[in-house]
């Protein structure tokens, strides 16, 4: 009998040797004359178990991980192809692994289960059900469904998606665009990448629904060049979606029309900012535009444009399929639905955790993450990317909710959680925040362009104990100027991590290190 064996092939699984593991499994099967079907599925996002091999059994899929090439022979010996449990890497039924079982996966429900490029797999797991429904609806009704879900943009600013769509919908008919922001530049975030590599039709479906909702017939996925695998997977998925009639003219015989293509970025963090992204798509340097006008009114090539993050668009198929209310039933306060949390950095069990808003950061880092990988005490956590604050232990009991975080000057951002143990030098981290801004600033406004460079210099002087008191005051003033005077959040938020270090970890900045910082 044929046994189905799964070996993931997202970037992280591959980065840890999944291809070699797959090849060795195939060889072992041949040698033992076992008839296996090797499926290269997406990753479940349990990166601490990658490469995580699964075998289909009568009881369900059973998991083994993390499987290194050297483990394959022993696993096969221990009955891998029969779902054998007598091996230290055996993890039992995949669905029963607590890390997975305790999640609330709405957007990532298919991830790691299917072959990312198989349209049949996608359909077998309710794929395209949302689009089929949207094809029968009036555009306003689609917008209303998204409004009813309470979905807020997952790219960082948390603006209500339905309201943005309404604005574009209400603009006079004519050329309009759907642009997916797949720049995912924040350190500690990889959920967009996972969605694109492991369930690309979900994004295609979400963007097509957005097109139907606002009357746009052209979409672009602006993808960062740092994601070569996502680029190949999404392009192949687009080709197959066109061939199967889910894109192009007369989608599934509905008379509706939507075109979609991928455009590659070129390594500029600021091109994640939506107006800069639009300039880049138009073929210019990615410079931030002053708002107004909003992109929803004058966006790509001056036309009304929806710019949404990958995960905002990826949430839409579920919302159309099950109804906005089903999505809104998850969450707390004004943060509805689920958040894709990404456990990264110095963490024992890193990976993707999708949960309704409201869990505390500590539960996430301890119950899911298992603490630091180094097993040293956790010291600082940066949530929401490089423009957000570092949180000291006193703030780890905050519930993950946009408003609760904003209240203490922190951000949920894109849901990335970067953990650092007690060996971290927070003075170095403050310096890095300024350095990153100086490298990545678009240069349009002075507080950011010059301020970031000066920020690095001032921090260097503080750390070298050169007129420390005066320079600390200068740093604090500089931060205030950048916050108040910058055109966009790059310069306007870079001070947040720095100020959080000044406030919560001041000793690290002033700890004398005599001589020049490295």
């Amino acid at each position, binding site marked *: 009998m044929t046994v189905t064996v799964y070996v993931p*092939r997202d*970037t*992280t699984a*591959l*980065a*840890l040797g999944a*291809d070699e593991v797959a090849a060795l499994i195939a060889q072992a099967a041949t040698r033992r004359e076992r008839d296996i079907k090797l499926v*290269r599925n997406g990753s479940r996002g349990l990166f*601490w178990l*990658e490469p995580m091999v699964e075998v289909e059994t009568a009881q369900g899929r059973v998991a083994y991980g993390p499987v290194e090439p050297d483990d394959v022979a022993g696993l096969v010996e221990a009955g891998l192809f029969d779902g054998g449990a007598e091996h230290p890497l055996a993890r039992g039924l995949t669905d029963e692994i607590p890390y997975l079982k305790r999640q609330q996966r709405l957007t990532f429900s298919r991830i790691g289960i299917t072959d990312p*490029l198989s349209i049949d797999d996608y359909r077998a797991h309710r794929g395209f059900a949302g689009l089929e429904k949207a094809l029968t609806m009036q555009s306003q009704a689609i917008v209303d469904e998204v409004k009813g879900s309470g979905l807020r943009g997952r790219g960082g600013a948390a603006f209500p998606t339905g309201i943005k769509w309404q604005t574009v919908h209400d603009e006079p008919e004519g050329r309009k665009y759907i642009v997916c922001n797949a720049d*995912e530049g*924040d*350190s*500690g*975030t*990889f959920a967009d*990448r996972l969605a694109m590599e492991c369930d690309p039709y979900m994004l295609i479906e979400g963007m097509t629904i957005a097109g139907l909702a606002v009357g746009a017939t052209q979409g672009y996925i602006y993808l960062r*060049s*740092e*994601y*070569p*695998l996502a680029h*190949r*997977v999404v392009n*192949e998925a687009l080709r197959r979606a066109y061939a199967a009639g889910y894109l192009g003219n007369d989608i599934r015989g509905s008379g509706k029309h939507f075109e979609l293509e991928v*455009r*590659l*970025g*070129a*390594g*500029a*963090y600021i091109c994640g900012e939506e107006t800069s992204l639009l300039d*880049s*798509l138009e*073929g*210019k*340097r*990615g410079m931030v535009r002053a708002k107004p006008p909003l992109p929803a009114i004058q966006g790509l*090539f001056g036309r009304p444009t929806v710019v949404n993050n990958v995960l905002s668009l990826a949430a839409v198929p579920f919302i159309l399929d099950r109804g906005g209310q089903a999505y809104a039933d998850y969450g707390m306060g004004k943060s509805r639905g689920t958040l894709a949390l*990404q456990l*990264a*950095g*110095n*963490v024992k069990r*890193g*990976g993707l955790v999708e949960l309704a808003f409201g869990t505390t950061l500590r539960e996430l880092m301890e119950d899911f993450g298992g603490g630091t990988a*180094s097993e040293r005490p956790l010291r600082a956590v*940066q949530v929401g990317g*490089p423009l957000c604050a570092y949180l000291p232990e006193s703030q780890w009991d905050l519930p993950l909710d946009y408003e609760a975080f904003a209240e203490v000057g922190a951000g949920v951002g894109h849901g*990335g959680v*970067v*953990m*650092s143990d007690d060996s*971290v030098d927070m003075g170095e*981290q403050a310096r*890095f925040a300024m350095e*990153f801004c100086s*490298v*990545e600033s678009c240069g349009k406004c002075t507080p950011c362009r010059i301020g970031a460079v000066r920020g690095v210099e001032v921090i260097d002087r503080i750390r070298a104990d050169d007129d420390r008191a005066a320079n600390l005051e200068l740093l604090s003033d500089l931060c205030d100027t950048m916050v108040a005077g910058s055109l966009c959040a790059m310069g306007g938020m870079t001070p947040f991590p720095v100020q959080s270090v000044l406030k919560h970890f001041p000793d690290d900045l002033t700890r004398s290190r005599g001589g020049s910082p490295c």
Partner: protein
Amino acid sequence: MTPSGKRQPQAWTHESLQREVDALKDEPGAMLPILHAIQDRCGYIPEAAVPIIAETLRHTRAEVHGIISFYHHFRSHPVGSHVVQVCRAEACQSVGSRQLEAHVKQQLGVDYHQTSRDNEFTLEPVYCLGNCACGPSIRVDDEIHGRVTAEKFDRLVDRLTTSILEVQ
């Protein structure tokens, strides 16, 4: 669909550059696709491409230069046989990427944006490869590697330089 190895850069002529530009010039916002196509083919963007792009897209040469230099991904000079990118971002820092950076620079004998003397490796910084749960991360050509230690990096370099010799 696993990451393919490195594409071999091809020699260019005026005509081949013009062909790359012409193939894409009618796309809306053609500039970035054109620059990517040229760099994918040549490994960098030759100076000779600038006037061709400028004239075809009706830009000034200064504008084209400005665009190329704005984006970290685009290069104006040829690179070594392999491009090594080390992730410098926060999640990788928290698991030792600063030490790894120092090791890589020493091992290859270059700083960022430089090419090793044997022309094998060009070193570049990168800010996040989306592998943040399993850092430190590096990218070598189109392949990403996770949990990279100094020893793992050395083995990788050995493998890459040896396989090149075998091919030749």
